[in-house]
């Protein structure tokens, strides 16, 4: 169960090697001992390191083999988790090379399958779980890239737009069933995923995203931007005419 101050007993990380997912688990582990984490990720060194990192924070960790592209397996994987899933963090995703993404059909397709199709199949499985357990929070890591497509990464942006719409709607569907969805829209996050890229304005960190998520879950919020000022910025950018928008350094 999640207690009155938003502290869970059991967190499921989908895409468990994601820096943001791990930072969220660590933030909860810091609230008190006894956190159980199920870390669903592709087997390998990255996952082993993540397990070790959470062990060191006092978490009881179970690793599960998770392949985002194997969408048919998602239902059984989530149904097979025994403990109540108090918080599920949907954190897997690919950024991809933005130019390949719109010129190479294989890259485009992979981005769509991992970021959108995989997110939906896990989302449906999580929703089924929440319906039977009568409670639970899904933290869905969206992106401001989905709010207004940009020339620089619109394929990624389009998958996140679909992701965002799905989880926003899922939050409405689960309201009456005890579930809650928190859609998180970070700006540029300095992490493994963005390594080597030039940080965009208002760049943030996985720790800052984690802190914002912990507060938002405690306060029952359904949608946040990280940093918070990004909400105002994006609200403005949505209304900038395209002729001007394409000239902006964003």
């Amino acid at each position: 169960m999640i207690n009155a101050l938003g502290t869970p007993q059991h967190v499921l990380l989908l895409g468990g090697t994601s820096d943001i997912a791990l930072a969220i688990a660590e933030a909860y582990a810091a609230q008190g001992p006894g956190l159980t984490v199920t870390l669903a990720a592709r087997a390998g060194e990255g996952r082993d390191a993540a397990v070790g990192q959470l062990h060191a924070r006092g978490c009881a960790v179970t690793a599960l083999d998770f392949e985002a592209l194997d969408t048919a397996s998602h239902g059984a994987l989530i149904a097979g988790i025994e403990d109540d899933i108090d918080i599920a963090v949907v954190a897997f995703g690919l950024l991809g090379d933005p130019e390949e993404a719109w010129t190479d059909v294989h890259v485009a397709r992979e981005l769509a399958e991992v970021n959108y199709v995989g997110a939906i199949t896990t989302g449906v499985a999580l929703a089924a779980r929440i319906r039977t357990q009568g409670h639970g929070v899904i933290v869905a890591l969206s992106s401001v890239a989905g709010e207004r497509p940009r020339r620089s990464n619109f394929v990624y942006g389009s998958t996140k737009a679909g992701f965002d719409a799905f989880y926003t709607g899922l939050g409405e569907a689960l309201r009456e069933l005890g579930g809650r969805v928190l859609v998180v829209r970070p700006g540029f996050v300095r992490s493994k995923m963005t390594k080597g890229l030039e940080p965009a304005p208002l760049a943030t960190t996985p720790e800052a995203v984690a802190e914002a998520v912990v507060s938002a879950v405690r306060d029952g919020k359904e949608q946040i931007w990280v940093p918070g000022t990004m909400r105002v910025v994006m609200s403005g950018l949505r209304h900038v005419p395209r002729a001007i928008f394409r000239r902006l350094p964003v």
Partner: protein
Amino acid sequence: MNESLTGWGGTSASTARVERPADLEALRNELRAVGDRGVITRGLGRSYGDPAQNAGGTVLDLTEWDSILDIDTRAPSVRVQSGISLDRLLRALLPLGLWLPVVPGTRHVTVGGAIAADVHGKNHHVDGSFGNHVSSFDILLASGDTVTATPDGNDAELFWATVGGMGLTGVVLEATIRLKEVETSYFVVDTRRARNLAEVLAALETGDDSYTYSVAWFDTATTGDSLGRGVVMRGNTAPREALDPEKRRSALEFAAPQRGRVPVELPVGLVNRFTARGFNALWYATAPRHRTHEIQDITQFFHPLDIIGDWNRVYGPKGFCQYQFVVPSGEEAAFTTIVETIARSGHVSSLNVLKRFGPGNRAPLSFPMAGWTLAVDLPVRAGLATLLNHLDQIVLAAGGRVYLAKDSRTSAAAIARMYPRIDEFRTARARFDPTSTFRSDLSRRLDL
């Protein structure tokens, strides 16, 4: 029907199928049909946290099972169905010159809930908790059998596991409660201000024996020399001759007006550091320095909060935590440290109650023990988890515990240490409900 439920603190909502069985057969059918998420009974929802919630399972609302079955004016005692509220029961008993032996801070709890939480009142130092005055109850077990349990009979283990057992042993259907005789529904009250916590404790330590009812309100926002300044309020039931002639004519009337309610759920809370600080200062400033032999009615003396219906709504949608703990006598230093920690934390409570408890009873999960108890209401905001986890550690080190009827945030590990007899409870639960038919969000959260 699926309903989203919370406790009185308005936190940690979860959804359950709420059933209102009309009779015993329907109730048995509910137990038979229960799925792997289990079932729990809910009364009037005054527990602050999650004991009357059962996410994904069944919640039994038995508040319509509220008949008075028999009043024995000679014993005196009353036999009731468990869904009756103490409010309704008191209204029926008073004209007969009878009174419940234990009345908690609100009358809007059921008899079933009062047993499940083993509630206490301002007279704990004299009369103990609710379970001490229950002479027997009928309980429906997971098996579908109904058992009559008494404190010293063959089913004493079941009796004491159920007292304070948070509804996890079965469904109490009917109970017999021993009563007190009273001449009036009024109280003769002495009130005095105390300049700091040490004075409050000293007053309660020395003078309590002359009063059946005793409690102190204190300020959680002041530090230094006036740390824990408070108002000590103590009284006894008023004899007829203490009343003026006008009140004497209606001596046994139930004088408990409700003067309003918070009508809607507010978009934001009205309680914050600033309003709570102001409220604290005002309460202290308007309390009499020392006043004796004042006649007060039930609501004034017993249930000032019951004057406003749904008062929990002032905390807004994020809700609040009530933190109530007890530390044993002799641990006044730990007690003072906790008050100091709260005062310095920046989290301000406006409803702060302090009381000296008498000895506890035989129930393994009963909260009271001889010592000092304190309750504070803290709005949910950043940093509260850290503060309360820290207070848990001080309480644990002092050999104390938090109250399950109030808790909404402690950990299973802390509870196991706070209730050293928890295994007695678990053994009894395993015996009377081997498949854990009775479950709640609280039992899942705290691994009871």
